[in-house]
């Protein structure tokens, strides 16, 4: 028996160079079905289309008149949620660009260290390409940040006045760190290969720390909007400090600052890792010479491992973050866990589950040939079991806890017996264990043997890496939206409302935010790919990878 191309098909259990495309179709079908069920069934039955402005209308009546908008509402001609859509688009797109630095800086540092320890050229080449990529895209991230500030001032003047005043000092630190950050990364790229190893490491550490503290500075503001440092805003005397120092510390170092900060770093590392994999797969397809194919195959695998590493850390930080919100802003916790925004958490955890499944499929398919050659059927079976168990865990995780009411404990709601949080905690733990063991097996058991295989990338593993790249970015902007909508209808929780009352409901409705996500992802990925085409190193024919 032969195939259409005249080749003999592989016997069962043997290696198929195309890989098992059915697994990829299964992942895409699961994603499509999940989103359809979420939007057509779960969101309507959990009150996801009902605005928080309406649900919390009584709370809004108690807002301090000092913080009601004094200026006329600035329309943007995009409907009642137009202003929120503007902010969502510009800030979520900004996150995608800013995360290049927040996550990329640590991965770049790892490449520098690996390069000098191992003397393998590929680490240096990828590191230098990444440095240039981030140098060029620094301006895109900064542009969206500046646009966000302008939009806040124009569309929410009272909030901007209060917020920028409270956070003047952290914002000044952030502004200065913009300069320090680009100084480090630009110097690192420019001096690459021209200075000593110690200087490379110094510049890499300086870059990573400057972006870490820059994010920390802005996170004082971002976290303070959800868990403000006081019940109201009380100003003091004119001077360097607009309110007593201890009050400032309450606002800046508010209860959700640290969990948000660490969660953001882990999410950014995961995002950047999966993005490397995505771009590597496009370069793999784009290049025809074997050395380039080997190089980009390796880069994809390197990216997936970093993506997975960042992914398995996030749930630990996430549950710490959720507990901080539960303890300090209980109503916001109810909004996103037992209320009308719970669908967003389902979407986020659904993507996380699918990412672990996709990464498992990537390793099943990518290491298939090597494992057959080595006779390690045990590891093949373990990888397969991981994908199946991760799929089952994901099925538990995407279960809605209830249906038929805006809040979980409203009278008449149907409680889903599969949607208990206890089951979900166990299911998340299972995903963490699977992700961690995949990293361990690939790095520690197969390390040293993988180099024989670069360039021998099956179509299925190629597609799995692409899917991981898209999901790894999408999950980041879903997380941003979760935090924004947890706060709705407030800008500073229970202090400064979103101006306009019931005429301008928030958060951005589910179908509109979906369009915003698509625009943000489409724009960012187009920029990433075209930039990567000019910043990436490709091995010459005569070079060995």
């Amino acid at each position, binding site marked *: 028996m032969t195939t259409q191309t005249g080749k003999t098909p592989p016997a069962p259990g043997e290696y198929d160079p195309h890989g098992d495309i059915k697994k990829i179709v299964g992942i895409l079908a699961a994603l499509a079905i999940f989103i359809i069920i979420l939007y057509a069934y779960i969101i309507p039955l959990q009150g996801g289309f009902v605005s928080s402005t309406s649900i919390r209308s009584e709370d809004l009546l108690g807002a301090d008149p000092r913080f009601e908008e004094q200026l006329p509402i600035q329309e943007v001609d995009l409907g009642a949620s137009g202003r929120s859509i503007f902010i969502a688009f510009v800030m979520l797109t900004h996150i995608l660009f800013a995360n290049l630095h927040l996550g990329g800086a640590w991965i770049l540092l790892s490449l520098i260290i690996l390069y000098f320890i191992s003397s393998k050229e590929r680490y240096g080449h990828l590191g230098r390409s990444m440095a240039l990529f981030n140098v060029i895209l620094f301006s895109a991230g900064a542009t969206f940040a500046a646009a966000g500030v302008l939009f806040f001032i124009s569309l929410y003047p009272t909030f901007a006045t209060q917020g920028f005043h409270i956070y003047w000092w952290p914002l000044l630190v952030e502004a200065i760190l913009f300069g320090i950050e680009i100084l480090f990364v630009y110097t690192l790229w420019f001096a690459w290969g021209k200075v000593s190893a110690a200087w490379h490491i110094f510049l890499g550490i300086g870059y990573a720390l400057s972006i870490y503290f820059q994010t920390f500075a802005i996170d004082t503001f971002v976290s303070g909007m959800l868990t403000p440092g006081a019940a109201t805003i009380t100003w003091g005397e004119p001077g360097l400090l607009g309110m007593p120092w201890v009050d400032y510390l309450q606002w800046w170092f508010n209860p959700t600052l640290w969990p948000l900060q660490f969660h953001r770093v882990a999410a950014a590392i995961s995002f950047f890792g999966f993005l490397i994999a995505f771009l590597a797969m496009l370069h793999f397809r784009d290049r025809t010479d074997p050395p380039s194919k080997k190089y980009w195959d390796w880069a994809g695998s390197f990216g997936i491992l970093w993506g997975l590493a960042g992914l*398995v850390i996030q*749930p*630990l930080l996430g*549950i*710490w973050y*959720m*507990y901080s919100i*539960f303890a300090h802003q209980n109503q916001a916790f109810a909004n996103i866990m037992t209320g009308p925004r719970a669908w967003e958490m389902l979407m986020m955890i659904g993507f996380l589950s699918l990412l672990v499944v996709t990464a498992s499929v990537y390793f099943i398919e990518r290491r298939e040939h090597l494992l057959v050659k080595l006779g390690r059927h045990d590891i093949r079976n373990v990888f397969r079991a991981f994908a199946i168990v991760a799929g089952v865990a994901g099925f538990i995780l995407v279960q809605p*806890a209830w249906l038929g009411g805006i809040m979980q404990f409203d009278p008449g709601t149907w409680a889903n017996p599969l949607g*208990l*949080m*206890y089951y979900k*905690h*166990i299911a*998340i*733990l299972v995903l*963490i*264990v699977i992700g*961690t*063991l995949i*990293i*361990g097996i690939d*790095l*520690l058991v197969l390390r040293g043997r993988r180099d024989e295989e670069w360039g021998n990338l099956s179509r299925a593993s190629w597609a799995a890496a692409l899917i991981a790249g898209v999901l790894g970015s999408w999950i980041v902007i879903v997380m941003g939206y979760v935090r924004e909508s947890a706060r709705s209808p407030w800008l500073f929780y229970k202090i400064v409302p979103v101006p306009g009352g019931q005429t301008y409901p928030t958060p951005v409705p589910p179908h509109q935010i979906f369009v915003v996500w698509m625009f943000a992802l489409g724009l960012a990925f187009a920029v990433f790919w075209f930039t990567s085409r000019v910043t990436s190193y490709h091995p010459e024919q005569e070079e060995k990878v």
Partner: protein
Amino acid sequence: MTRERALTYAMWVVIAIYIGIAIYVFWYFGFTKLPSPI
């Protein structure tokens, strides 16, 4: 035992410790701190 093998064992120990921390964190927050689902 070679240095490389020792490093590999050490990394497996790190992975095991990480999984242990994950179990502890989820037990601590998920089962004792966050509200019961019922």
